[in-house]
């Protein structure tokens, strides 16, 4: 059995955002393609929390959706527990799909407002044929509700009766009901207030310890990522620019973009650390800059960076895609 639960190799996703065929013909325009994810390779080990960070438009959520199968990959492969997901028959996929689940950002949109909480949580049980007997699944739902810090009698309520944090707990209970090994968390606390965020993050860590879960944790908030992740991958315009151990990355960020992101985090405790200010914004992904896509914002960029795309170089410190990284 391999150490890696999830292996992603050269994954890309291209969106066709061209105008309709006739318009293109009349206006003599070419097809327009948006490369949301560009040759991303990464491995996630069993039991770890791997975080993907990046600004909006960097492709974090697109990767998450491809992993859980909500979007098809344009090229590349995703292997879950050694099995290539693209090559599986629908029946085999059913079994595999039970083993990974996803928590979404917006707990107001991800729960069906017309369903009782009990039915929401029991849906994966029904889908995967796990709660064959009615009483059986009932008991499991009650257990799950208590597990995430709600009470069993909350099962008969509707989602609108709960606050944002409680709804995210319901979403977590639903995810856990099919006993998954791997959970993709797409900005699970971004819609929540800070005092509630702490509750949810603590709950997620407790559940990881109790059930040996593996997380792919997607966030734009570096402080949250630092708190949750063992390893971190930094995305910029659809490319992975740096992957390294969480502690290592915060102590010694190697890619200039990672350094810039860390500098931009507000100094909450007013330690008065001196900071180099971030410059510029993420470019339009339809017309990305040539060579290293970060070069217009990079203080170290030279002619070489403008012309060539830096390869991902692996070392014992992690992986980094930069000509200037030491």
């Amino acid at each position, binding site marked *: 059995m391999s150490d890696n639960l999830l292996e992603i190799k050269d994954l890309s996703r291209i969106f066709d955002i061209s105008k309709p065929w006739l318009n293109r013909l009349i206006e003599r325009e070419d097809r327009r393609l948006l490369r949301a994810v560009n040759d991303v390779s990464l491995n996630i080990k069993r039991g770890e929390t791997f975080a993907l960070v990046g*600004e*909006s438009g960097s492709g974090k959520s697109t990767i998450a959706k491809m992993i859980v199968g909500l979007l098809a990959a344009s090229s590349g492969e995703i292997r879950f527990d050694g099995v290539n997901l693209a090559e599986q028959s629908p029946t085999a996929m059913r079994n595999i799909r039970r083993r990974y689940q996803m928590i979404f950002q917006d707990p107001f949109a991800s729960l069906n407002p017309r369903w009782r909480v009990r039915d929401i949580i029991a849906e994966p049980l029904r889908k995967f044929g796990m709660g064959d007997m009615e009483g059986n699944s009932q008991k499991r739902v009650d257990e799950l509700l208590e597990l995430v810090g709600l009470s069993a009698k909350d099962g008969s309520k509707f989602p609108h009766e709960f*606050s*944002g*944090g*409680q709804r995210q707990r319901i979403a977590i209970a639903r995810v856990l009901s099919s006993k998954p090994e791997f959970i993709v968390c797409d900005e699970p606390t971004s819609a929540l*207030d*800070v*005092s*509630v*965020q*702490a*509750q949810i*993050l*603590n709950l997620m*860590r407790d559940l990881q310890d109790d059930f040996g879960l593996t997380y792919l944790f997607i966030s*734009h*908030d*570096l*402080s*949250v990522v*630092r*708190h949750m992740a063992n390893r971190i991958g930094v995305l910029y315009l659809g490319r992975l620019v740096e992957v390294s151990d969480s502690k290592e990355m*915060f102590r010694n960020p190697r890619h200039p973009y990672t350094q*810039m*992101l*860390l*500098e*931009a*985090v*507000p*100094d*909450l*405790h*007013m*330690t008065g650390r001196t900071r180099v*200010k*971030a*410059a*510029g*914004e*993420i470019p339009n992904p339809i017309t990305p800059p040539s060579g290293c896509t970060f070069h217009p914002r990079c203080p170290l960029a030279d002619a070489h960076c403008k012309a060539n795309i830096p390869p991902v170089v692996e070392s014992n410190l992690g992986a980094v895609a930069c000509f200037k990284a030491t």
Partner: protein
Amino acid sequence: MSDVLLSVRDMVVDFPTRHGLLRAVDHVSFDLSRGEVLGLVGESGAGKSITGAAIIGLIEPPGHISGGTVHLDGSRIDNLGMEEMRRIRGKRVGMVFQDPLTSLNPLYTIAKQLIQTIRTHLDLTEKQARARAIGLLEEVGIPAADKRIDDYPHQFSGGMRQRVVIALALCAGPELIIADEPTTALDVSVQSQIIDVLKRMCAEHGTAVILITHDMGVIAEAADRVAVLYSGRIAEIGPVREVIKQAKHPYTKGLMRSIPTLTQTNDRLTQIPGTMPRITDRPEGCAFAPRCGHVMDICRSQQPATRSVGNCEVACHLETEGGAS
């Protein structure tokens, strides 16, 4: 002329509904000096945006200010009519909202919007107004401002749009800017740039700012003083450094500990149990009592009065009792 630019005293904002009167802001008082940045921080539903909107008379009916006073530069503004208020808004008080795309009109160029705003409030010719607009855009850091001024809002990126909105707020040289979550829709690397622009512009123009945000990090970066709102009331108000480093109210303390930081190493975050009570079922007494670790009998029955403690003002019975526990 006094140093105090804005003085809010015991402001109450009510929303009459079918289910009775909802009190969104409950006896909020604070002063703002010229050129000062005051942060209003709190969770969603704490009343921070309503406080900001009430100051400039932008509460949607049937909501209304049902008590207290607001003085701008010594003259009362909370009881002014629509027309008089309209003249103050934009001229003496500028506004920056969260989403830069909705605060700009997509059908007009930036030039048109800036020039129109400038000419509404200042007696300038079209040409002078345009020159002033270009100057403002340059100040907020828009490259090639003389060309970009003729672009439409959709041609700007998110960060650039927010810069335009800041320029728009500064058009008539206001004494006060109310910025409601100005960086929430932006990425972190852009957020720090916008905070810088806001801070720099206000320092140069001597404009005071009310910075409304849920993000303590932004407050730590930008504000001089901060008011922590909880359930429609000010829990604690004081200089940023003191509130962040030596919080006195149990809510502020808990809030500060529950935010993950880049420097802390412990495994678990300290969490405040429960959530803020809904506006419809606030408890009697202190609104934080059900979640508070130091709750006493008096907290459940009596609302704490605001007391001065050092440079801060704190509304907590622990302080009134002289730290009895």
